[in-house]
């Protein structure tokens, strides 16, 4: 599989000529990404008759553009009203929302847009140049390696818990326990389902996300007339293009941060089933670990916003790699793309690059061009989008409750899921009021079932021998990285504290 530069150049120019498909898809993706329950995958399924009817190339470009922009769209409500549009943006409000509350909504959106776009462009180029090698990641990541990747994500619970260790850990482990609801992966024994058949498949993620973030937040912010603080409101009222440009500058100054956190997203995106939620949490945790100012994370620190946004856009390029090279979809959206390609009789796998290189490279080029278009079409909107924070909570809270609850219904079309979202809303409200972090609960709900699945698979392969967890070279390397990522912040803290202790004596 040798990269043909002539084909690439031709595809790049051709993708630009498809602006009339890409730009509407960008705006549609931005909208559906921003509404919980309306993921890119759902929307593409809804529009499947359309994508199957048009030429395969147009259909694929439309899907790729919608997929990329929906990732960015999910970050918009996460920043402005603390409600992630998808689980992939669940780490975004950790620092994005405090910025919006302080009246820096336009700046936060600009940071998010630039980090997303730059992360997307960087990872698309890397993906293009390293397709054959990256595709092998999917082969070498087995149960053991995946367990360590999951533990990287879960270690964020400890990061969040740093401010109040006990409550942080209770929230995280409570989430893991809730995530264990449902039938087990081997014997299908129902566990903790309270007799509800709807819970046999486990806790559906969208109702959990809607309840923990949207419903609970709506019940919280009705106490004030606006979600902004007094100073934040004053700053927001005089907000100008300067805030957007400032956001641009802040991200440009941290270009290296964008690069390495987006690569985390790319690598995790290549692994089928891992997804943007894990990538963004892992990137956030790693970003904080290696930061010179970890104490600022969670208070509206730009790096805490750049990391998850770069990473979840890095995932989009990563997801395409196993699809194109191996014919294995890396996620739900990639699976739908596979269906469309098969419908048109396109053969996946290595032959794709020989038989129809225009399709293979065309999809990645379409992604690159989409990100370039996004930079110019969406960035200028940040100033206007941030005005949402000025809307009175008297109107905002009911709108958020009604539309997100219906969003919880959409993925499975069970009325039960709306009730479940309300239950999670109550849990989220109690948690917020009493100092338990809802993000820690959500991480548990997302990662709990995955961790159990990989753990059981590993144990079964090893016939119950726990030393199997340390049996692979790559796994052991990841274990070392995990231990180092936990130890380094502790050592750095000690180093920072040492001079101050010296001064005191």
């Amino acid at each position, binding site marked *: 599989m040798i990269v043909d530069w002539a084909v690439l150049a031709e595809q790049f120019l051709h993708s630009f000529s498809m602006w009339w498909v890409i730009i509407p898809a960008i705006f549609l993706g931005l909208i559906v990404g921003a509404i919980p329950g309306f993921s890119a995958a759902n929307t593409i399924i809804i529009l499947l008759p359309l994508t199957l009817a048009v030429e395969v190339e147009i259909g694929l470009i439309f899907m790729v553009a919608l997929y990329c922009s929906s990732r960015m769209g999910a970050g918009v409500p996460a920043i402005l009203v603390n409600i992630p549009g998808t689980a992939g943006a669940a780490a975004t409000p950790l620092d994005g929302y405090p910025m919006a509350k302080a009246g820096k909504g336009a700046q936060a959106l600009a940071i998010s847009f630039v980090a997303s776009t730059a992360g997307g462009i960087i990872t698309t180029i890397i993906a293009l140049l390293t397709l054959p090698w990256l595709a092998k990641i999917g082969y070498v990541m087995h149960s053991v390696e995946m367990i360590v990747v999951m533990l990287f994500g879960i270690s964020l619970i400890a990061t969040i818990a740093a401010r109040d260790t006990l409550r942080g850990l209770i929230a995280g482990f409570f989430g893991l326990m809730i995530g264990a609801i449902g039938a087990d992966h081997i*014997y299908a024994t129902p566990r903790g389902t309270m007799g509800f058949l709807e819970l046999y498949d486990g806790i559906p993620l969208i109702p959990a996300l809607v309840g923990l973030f949207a419903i609970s937040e709506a019940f919280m912010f009705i106490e004030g007339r606006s979600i902004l603080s007094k100073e934040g409101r004053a700053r927001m009222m005089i907000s100008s293009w300067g805030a957007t440009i400032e956001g641009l500058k802040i991200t440009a100054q941290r270009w290296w941060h964008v690069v390495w956190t987006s690569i985390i997203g790319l690598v995790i995106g290549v692994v089928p089933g891992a997804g943007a939620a894990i990538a963004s949490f892992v990137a956030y945790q790693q970003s904080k670990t290696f930061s010179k100012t970890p104490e600022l994370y969670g208070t509206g620190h730009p790096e805490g916003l750049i990391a998850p946004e770069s990473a979840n856009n890095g995932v989009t390029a990563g997801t395409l790699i196993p699809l194109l090279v191996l014919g294995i979809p890396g996620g739900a959206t990639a699976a739908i793309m596979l269906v469309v390609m098969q419908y048109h009789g396109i053969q996946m796998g290595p032959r794709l690059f020989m038989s129809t290189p225009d399709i293979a490279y065309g999809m990645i080029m379409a992604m690159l061009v989409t990100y370039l278009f996004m930079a110019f079409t969406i960035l200028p909107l940040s100033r206007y989008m941030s005005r949402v924070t000025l809307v009175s909570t008297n109107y905002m809270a009911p709108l958020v*409750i009604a539309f997100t609850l219906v969003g919880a219904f959409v993925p499975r079309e069970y009325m039960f899921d709306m009730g479940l979202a309300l239950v999670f809303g109550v849990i989220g409200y109690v948690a917020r009021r009493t100092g338990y972090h809802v993000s820690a609960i959500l991480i548990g709900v997302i990662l709990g079932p995955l961790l159990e699945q990989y753990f059981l698979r590993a144990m079964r392969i090893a016939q119950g021998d726990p030393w199997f967890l340390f049996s692979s070279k790559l796994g052991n390397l990841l274990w070392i990285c995990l231990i180092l990522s936990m130890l380094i912040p502790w050592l750095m803290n000690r180093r920072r504290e040492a001079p101050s202790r010296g001064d005191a004596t």
Partner: protein
Amino acid sequence: MSGKPLSEKKATGGQLIIPVAAILFTLYYFSTIWNSPFEAQVAAFFVGTILLVLSLTFIVKRLWQWKRGEINLAFDDLLGERTMRLRRLILFCLTLGFVVLIEILGFTITTFLFLASAMLLLGQGRHFDRAIGIAFGAAIGGYLLFILAFETRFPAGPFENFMTSVVGG
């Protein structure tokens, strides 16, 4: 239980809700896997045991502080501002009503009723026309965008059925 006067002590009763709920849920969960195969138990017993230890530690710590008179176990931390308590409770009841009624009345009518009543509640009856206008616009806008344009299968009721018979589909 001496220490500070009650009014000066920090109300932390609400902080016990999550640990107590976690303990009750974990014990219930254990009861559902007691006779299950080992594979169905192992992860839950591991996570559940840690959760039980953490929750009990937190509860004992708070009870110790309460015994020493450092905190009180009232629920003020959970309920928030006094002026908002009744409004929040009514909003919760309206939300519950929305979840129950949407299956019968469908998306558009239920959304309009919920939005109008919730906006009037939070605005204490002020800006009646604006609240009704926004509720109407959002409900109809939601219908046009999600049901008509995206063909999303939202809960259908009399309005959606009538519109389907008019516009087809």
